[in-house]
């Protein structure tokens, strides 16, 4: 009987824990940013390993990889990983972006790319090797130095190995 009560308490605590985590998850856009804003966002996280992921709601592989990004963040948050999402959706799809984030509740901040200027300038500023394809991810070490870029869906296992190596080096 006591074990039943204990299990019930654990289950309740777990449920509250899950609710608390979900409620804390960013469900709205953190703001807009251009290339300079992105540099600042990465610089603010100095001391952490940062993975910036560029995505769009209409991009099927982007939507598919979103849960694995969330898990990657959850597994490595305590060690110092910070995932940052950047939506490149059309301006008219901003509502769809908000809806997507409200549904997915990713445990990392997401920005909308600021309109204006030439996309090419933004793409080049993020990484000269980037052709503009989505999804696209860029990994920075604890000093804010760009370590590598991933074109297409993130190869999660290989990327996590690389992230953990960076997290291990102080």
């Amino acid at each position, binding site marked *: 009987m006591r074990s039943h009560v204990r299990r019930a308490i654990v289950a309740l605590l777990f449920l509250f824990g899950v609710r608390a985590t979900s409620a804390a998850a960013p469900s709205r856009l953190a703001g807009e940013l251009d290339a300079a804003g992105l540099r600042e966002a990465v610089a603010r996280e100095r001391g952490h390993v940062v993975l910036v992921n560029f995505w769009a709601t209409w991009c099927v592989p982007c939507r598919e990889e979103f849960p694995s990004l969330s898990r990657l963040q959850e597994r490595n948050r305590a060690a110092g990983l910070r995932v940052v999402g950047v939506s490149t959706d059309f301006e008219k799809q901003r509502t769809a972006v908000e809806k997507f984030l409200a549904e997915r509740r990713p445990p990392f901040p997401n920005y909308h790319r600021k309109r204006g200027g030439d996309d090419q300038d933004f793409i080049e500023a993020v990484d000269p090797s980037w052709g503009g*394809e989505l999804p696209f991810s860029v990994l920075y070490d604890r000093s804010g130095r760009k370590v590598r870029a991933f074109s297409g869906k993130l190869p999660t296992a290989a990327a996590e190995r690389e992230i953990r190596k960076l997290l291990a080096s102080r």
Partner: protein
Amino acid sequence: MRLFRSILVLCGLCALSVAAIAETPAIGAAAPDFHLTTIDGKSFALSSEAKAHKAVVVMFISTQCPYSNAYNDRMRDMASAYASKGVMFVGINSNRTEDAATALSHAKAHGHSFPIMKDPGNKVADLYDAQHTPTVYVVDSQGKVRYEGRIDENYEDPSGVTSPDLKNALDALLAGKPVAKTVTKAFGCSIKRV
């Protein structure tokens, strides 16, 4: 020790040559030739068509990608406008997720009368190292790549285009002038490879 160094140098050279094969063709270099069948059953060879035209515009396109679809009307209009000037437009669909029947109905729905081909096993996309749709390559009558990149900078509003990059490249080529901006970039959808 000397043998070890030689092996290292050889390995380095091998790695470089593999990288060179995988890279997108350089501007001014020969466009990789390819033979495909159009979705309405005709055979197509880039080298033959390049010789027969002043230029061939090879467009990697998609039926589902919003960025590619944003250019459907512009592709149709440019293909039509430049046909009389000796320029041929062709569409290549390398996505494993889109079949020939879908490509055909998409072409009909958008008035695309230029040749469209499925690219089985995304071999042509690999030859060009094309990563996303839409991406275009301009190949001149000598079979050389003269431009690579986007159609223009404004996918959202055709009336607000300020940098008609493909048009500028074609006009320069037809006028016998050097193309000012030979490589451009824009957002797009990753090609769904096998």
